[in-house]
């Protein structure tokens, strides 16, 4: 009966065993790589889930730096970067920029004064279509060095559904067990608060590798230094929704500018640890000026559907060994896929 159904006069048992073993091995390997046997694995999905549980309703929004405003402008390269990197947008010239300012929060309706860290994201496009995307924060160093530590920090900030607030013990406990947060916390305690995106410096946080025409690679951390002088204010005087308005008001008077600085690392400077500042006095090269011309509401602005994945780089700029970079890329992609799908469903 079975033989007739299968149309065979040959052996059945041995082929069945071989087939089961081969298929079982392939399917198991596939499931293992996919993480299906390993529910504890830190996946992009788990990271993005956690980021979305820090208060407010993030559906349809970025899961981190959820509240922001779009901007457009240009990057005016002075050409000094061409000695360091073959990136086409470092050649003297002007390149269009789509960007975004935001506050580091999971809540798209958070009060502007509630977030210690602010951010600038840029997408710089070269004439040949190559892109340089970067997400930079106002803190010169990051709070943690690894994806696992970042996940633990996000979990400590997660809202307990019972109280509507994070567990008050969680963040102190996280900080007590993560001494690498020291440099970041020192910045957070000492840096002046301001009521503007315009007067802040933004730091690329992670190290990258600049590669010149001869193939020589140099570690770098980049930053955007504001032309606008910082005006310190008491944090509790910052209104809930002042930052976007302040930006629009300033832009109505004229463009805002930042100087882009490449800080070149020495061989012993850490490239794999965003919590550790590099020693003072490292060579700095000014490679151009970011000019911000106009701002747009995020809901309809040109930055809304841009994933500012910091691993999207032109030829001449490469990833360093910083483990946060791949984690940012993977998490941003998942956050992007989710919010785009949520927007479509609306």
């Amino acid at each position, binding site marked *: 009966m079975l033989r007739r159904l*299968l149309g065979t006069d040959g052996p059945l048992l041995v082929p069945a065993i071989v087939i089961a073993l081969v*298929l079982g091995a392939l399917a198991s390997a596939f499931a293992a*790589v*996919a993480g299906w046997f390993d529910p504890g694995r830190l996946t992009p999905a788990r990271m993005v889930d956690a980021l979305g549980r820090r208060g407010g309703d993030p559906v349809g929004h970025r899961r981190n730096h959820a509240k922001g405003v779009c901007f457009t402008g240009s990057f005016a390269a002075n050409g000094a970067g061409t000695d360091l990197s073959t990136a086409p947008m470092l050649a003297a010239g002007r390149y269009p920029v789509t960007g975004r300012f935001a506050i580091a929060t999971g809540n798209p309706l958070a009060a502007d004064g509630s977030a210690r860290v602010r951010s600038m994201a840029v997408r710089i496009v070269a004439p040949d279509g*190559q892109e340089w995307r970067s997400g930079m924060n106002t803190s010169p160093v990051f709070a943690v060095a690894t994806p696992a530590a970042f996940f633990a920090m996000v979990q400590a900030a997660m809202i307990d559904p019972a109280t509507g607030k994070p567990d008050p013990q969680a963040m102190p406990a996280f900080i007590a067990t993560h001494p690498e947060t020291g440099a970041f916390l020192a910045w957070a305690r000492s840096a002046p608060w301001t009521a503007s995106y315009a007067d802040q410096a933004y730091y690329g946080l992670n190290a990258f590798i600049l590669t010149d025409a001869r193939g020589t690679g140099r570690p770098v951390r980049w930053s955007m230094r504001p032309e606008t002088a910082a005006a310190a204010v008491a944090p509790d005087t910052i209104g809930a929704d002042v930052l976007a308005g302040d930006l629009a008001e300033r832009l109505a008077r004229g463009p805002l500018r930042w100087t882009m600085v490449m800080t070149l690392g020495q061989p012993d400077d850490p490239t794999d640890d965003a919590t550790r500042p590099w020693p003072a006095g490292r060579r700095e090269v000014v490679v151009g000026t970011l000019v911000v011309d106009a701002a747009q509401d995020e809901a309809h602005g040109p930055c809304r559907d841009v*994933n500012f994945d910091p691993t999207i780089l032109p030829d001449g700029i490469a990833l360093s060994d910083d483990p946060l970079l*791949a984690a940012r890329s*993977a998490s941003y992609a998942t956050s992007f*896929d989710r919010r785009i799908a949520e927007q*479509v469903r609306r």
Partner: protein
Amino acid sequence: MSRRSFTAAQKLLHWSMAVAIIAMLFIGVGMVATLAPIHADLVALHRPLGVVILVLALIRLGLRLRRGAPPLPADLPWWQTLSARGSHVLLYALMIAMPLVGWGMLSAGGYPIVLHGAWQLPPILPQSNLLQVILRQSHRWLGLVFFAVILLHIAAALFHGLSRRDGVFSSMVRGR
């Protein structure tokens, strides 16, 4: 005219693409499930390998249409003949559709489609959230279907080679 075996070029394409496609499916399912540094390396490999598979698949389709395939055994039960024909059409469709869906998905998502260094592909679709969502989901589900069909294909090949011993398996393995 009937041959007992595929041509040497067809066999070379079959086995090199088998390795590339299975590697590609593992890379794809692995890269979306990890935050580790290897994520960036896998993504950087996934795009150019997809283009290689697309090019090889088009060459292979041309060869298949021109040179055909050895006939299936006449005594094969009807449902196996039907499954063989259907699964081969599906495999060709997936070999060509998967890279195109991936390319379209990156286009619709507004991403640059970087192959290596300064080498980029142009977008094949305008930026569109709706298309991005449809193609992103399709890429995932078609990938899982592709893997399942490959498993069935391997099971059928082993059945032909080990049980029926009807020359179907050897037509892709031995010389003419």
